[in-house]
């Protein structure tokens, strides 16, 4: 005896195994399947024939999933483009802004020329480190697995605030810094590690994305 609910549950399992995500789009596909079965039964088909024909018309799980993957890829490419614009602006504007403050306030807080230059060098190092990752992505390994890339990002981001806490709570109080010296130490301690962290992640992400883009020239469809 044909069991429609059981057959739909089996079909769902096949779709899930092919990588179709739940609830959306799997739920949407199931609604379509049920609607088609109902319509076919209205015109006289029996349940089993209606189910078989509806599944066939929907297409194989693999083909549908391939199309959905293309959508995800275009979407993530767009997000990444916005991210890159953000990173570019941040790595240019932040040093300019902070550098401007240093230059403007230098005379108020008695900064020596050497301290001024050192602060500016720290800001330049921030940008250079960030951009060296982006531009030198060919030297970095291609990590296709997004989870590993996320793990690298996480392990970069977590130690940063910890280091800042150590710096502010333990290192700064032990030294009798003048304002100028503090500003120098601050710029090196805050900006340089962030630059290195951005550079590493920017590079790894670019390397992985360039590798994905390469074999897929023919598949652009939008």
């Amino acid at each position, binding site marked *: 005896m044909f069991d429609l609910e059981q057959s739909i549950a089996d079909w769902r399992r096949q779709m899930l195994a092919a990588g179709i995500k739940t609830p959306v789009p799997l739920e*949407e596909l199931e609604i379509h399947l*049920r609607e088609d079965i109902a319509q076919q039964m209205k015109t006289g088909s029996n349940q089993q024939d209606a189910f078989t024909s509806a599944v066939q018309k929907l297409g194989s799980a693999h083909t549908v999933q391939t199309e*959905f993957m*293309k959508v995800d890829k275009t979407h993530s490419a767009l997000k990444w483009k916005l991210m890159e614009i953000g990173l570019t602006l941040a790595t240019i504007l932040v040093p300019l802004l902070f550098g401007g403050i240093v230059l403007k306030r230098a005379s108020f807080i008695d900064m020596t020329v050497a301290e001024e230059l050192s602060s500016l060098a720290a800001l330049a190092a921030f940008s250079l480190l960030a951009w060296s990752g982006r531009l030198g992505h060919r030297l970095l390994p291609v990590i296709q697995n997004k989870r590993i890339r996320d793990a690298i990002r996480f392990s970069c981001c977590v130690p940063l605030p910890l280091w800042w806490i150590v710096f502010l709570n333990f290192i700064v109080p032990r030294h009798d810094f003048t304002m100028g010296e503090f500003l120098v130490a601050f710029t090196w301690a805050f900006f340089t590690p962030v630059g290195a962290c951005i550079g590493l992640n920017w590079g790894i992400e670019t390397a992985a994305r360039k590798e994905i883009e390469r074999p897929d020239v023919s598949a652009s469809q939008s």
Partner: protein
Amino acid sequence: MIRKELVAASAEPLILSLLAKDESYGYAIIQEVKARSDGKLEWTDGMLYPVLHRMEHRGLIKSRWGESETGRKRKYYSLKKDGKTAMATHHEQWSLVHSVLAGLRKE
């Protein structure tokens, strides 16, 4: 039967034009395209959804969950402002191709 490439290329303008009339859902869109083309324009049903999702990501259409008269859950799609602009461009381009073809045929 219409060629695969043409079916794929016409999917977006057809969906946009259908949704310009009123909001609709996957199954109804397929049925309407089929009916209007006397069954000659036939999509693999499952392929419609990735196209709809791509158009939604691009901001051409938007979706909402609703219910049919019989209480069946459905995802309704409707046109957004950018979708209207995209539809106008599609119409312009397809009309141009059509008029060139028609002109050549007459000669």
